[in-house]
């Protein structure tokens, strides 16, 4: 495998001059805006705190690309291997349900942590978020089960589209 196709300039594939100018303009605009952001940061945030921002930016990358994504990929591959006899649609429903629940969890867990620290203002975070999250997961599990049952029933009635994962 040679890298000939990819060693050209990233801009070289533009079909016309107008598009080329548009892309260059967009890049210049983007670079200027990014620099403006850096300038605003330098002039309004103390150097010590900028180090904190950079730490968080790097931390976010490590957390997402290094931990969360490989886990998601692993779950996907694992489900497919383990579930050779399970229809692909069912596997996808399960994965989708896990995704939905995870998004809820990501949004709610900080609320639970914050609420656990002594609140000074009872109108901020008024609910009991942990039980609500648990109920939500319960609802997701029930809904997922219902959808799977329905999907399997429909599949059984129409034997044409039997495409197992394996």
């Amino acid at each position, binding site marked *: 495998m040679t890298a000939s196709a990819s060693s050209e300039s990233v801009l070289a594939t533009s079909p016309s001059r107008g598009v080329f100018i548009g892309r260059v303009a967009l890049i210049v605009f983007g670079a200027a*805006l990014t620099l403006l952001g850096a300038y605003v940061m330098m002039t309004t945030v103390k150097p010590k705190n900028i180090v904190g921002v950079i730490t968080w930016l790097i931390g976010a990358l490590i957390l*997402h690309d290094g931990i969360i994504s490989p886990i998601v990929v692993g779950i996907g591959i694992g489900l497919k291997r383990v579930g050779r006899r399970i229809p692909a649609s069912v596997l996808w429903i399960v994965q989708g349900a896990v*995704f939905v629940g995870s*998004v809820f969890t990501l949004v709610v867990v900080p609320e639970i942590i914050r609420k656990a620290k002594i609140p000074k203002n009872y109108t901020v975070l008024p609910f009991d*978020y942990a039980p609500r999250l648990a109920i*939500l997961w319960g609802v997701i599990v029930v809904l997922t089960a219902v959808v799977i049952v329905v999907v399997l029933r429909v599949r059984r009635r129409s034997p044409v589209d039997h495409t197992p994962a394996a």
Partner: protein
Amino acid sequence: MRHLLFDLRRSVSSTNRNARSATVMGRLLGVAFVVCILTGLYSHFLQQPYSWMHFPTHPVSLYKWSQGVHITVGIACFPLLLGKLYTIFPQLFQSPPIKSIGHVFERASITLFVSSSLVQIFTGLLNTFQYYPWPFPFKQVHFALSFVIIGSLAIHIALKLPLITRYWTAKRSYDANGEFIPPESDLVPVTPRKQALERLAALGVDPTSAAFQRDLDDPTVVLDAEVSSAAFEARRPKGFVARIFAWIDDTPSSPAKTSRRGFFTAVTASTVGVVALTAGQSFKPFDTINVLAPRQQGLGPNDLPINRTAAAAQVLETAMDPNWGLTISKGAFSVRLSAAQLLALPQHQADLPISCVEGWSQMATWRGVRLVDLVALVDADASASLKVTSLEKKGGYRIMMMGSEYVHDPNTLVATHLNGERLDIEHGYPARMIAPGRPGVLQTKWLSTLEVL
């Protein structure tokens, strides 16, 4: 190294991780980010205007909507951004990792874009419930990062434009079987083992069948040359890492349409879910299903939530002082009104929202004296703007500047009553400002002086 990158890339590939899904997710996320920066800039300049700036006071709920949209769309960005990152994960393992100077620039800008976006939406969410577990000031960093994000997004769009236009429509992205048509420049080579397996399949041989394995092990069986060479290349590799990759390689991919439907359903369901269950803090119709939002409409003294408490503002004594008075001044000329005198002036009522920069908002009924009547006591003219000071001991909003458009709007009140009751101390007793279309932090509570400029 290249082999490893290709192996990794192939392993994390799935039918959904392709340029078409990335384009679809990118469009949604792009719209969301543009909505967020526009509403964000509006909110920013309302709070820190240039001297030439004037803002609309009608509709009175303009800020309630713009900031409610800012926060709600920001929450929707969680599933959208995670979904988008899911579609592009294989791009992490490009080979070669660096192709040219332009490519370094491209990967650096995308790295900056991804990490800034993740930090931005996460810290933004936590700000909505006043939680700041990070070593930097929220407001300044949120503002600065917004430019970095939109700037790196513009670069990203410019660099990816050929792919975006190539995969803009579903029709051009999938073949007749619904399989994704990959871009020519981005083909990940198939392993020799996989090619050998395909050759065997073409020859009608199932290498996993027991009969074939028996034939292979039996020295008396003479195999066709083509079959035996293919079978040799199709052997399971030795070595731990190679075995893992072969194991993943042998994992069948699910049908393209099924996985596509599954992926987009999951993203849609989670987006609709988080929005529906939190939007009730800003939008009345969602109030009944407000399950997860950090605020609830109608909860608090005078049936309204509080942002800054009287204790935090250290006004518990000064606000309750029976000798409290509101001083209105213009140059050397000033008037001081006691609470009783203020209540004796012509009273007016207005339905105006409290709209917090943190996204929650609620309509309320206010009663008090029109600000325009009060500044008339010191002969203020139509272009007069105002410097308003609170009893607060400290805090960024102790002093508030008010443009002439608000000073002269008949809806702007120095309010003494809220939802039919005397103002609670948490809401600014003895008197507070309430003006149309402004963020809650500028609706100064516990008024002390009004200085006409």
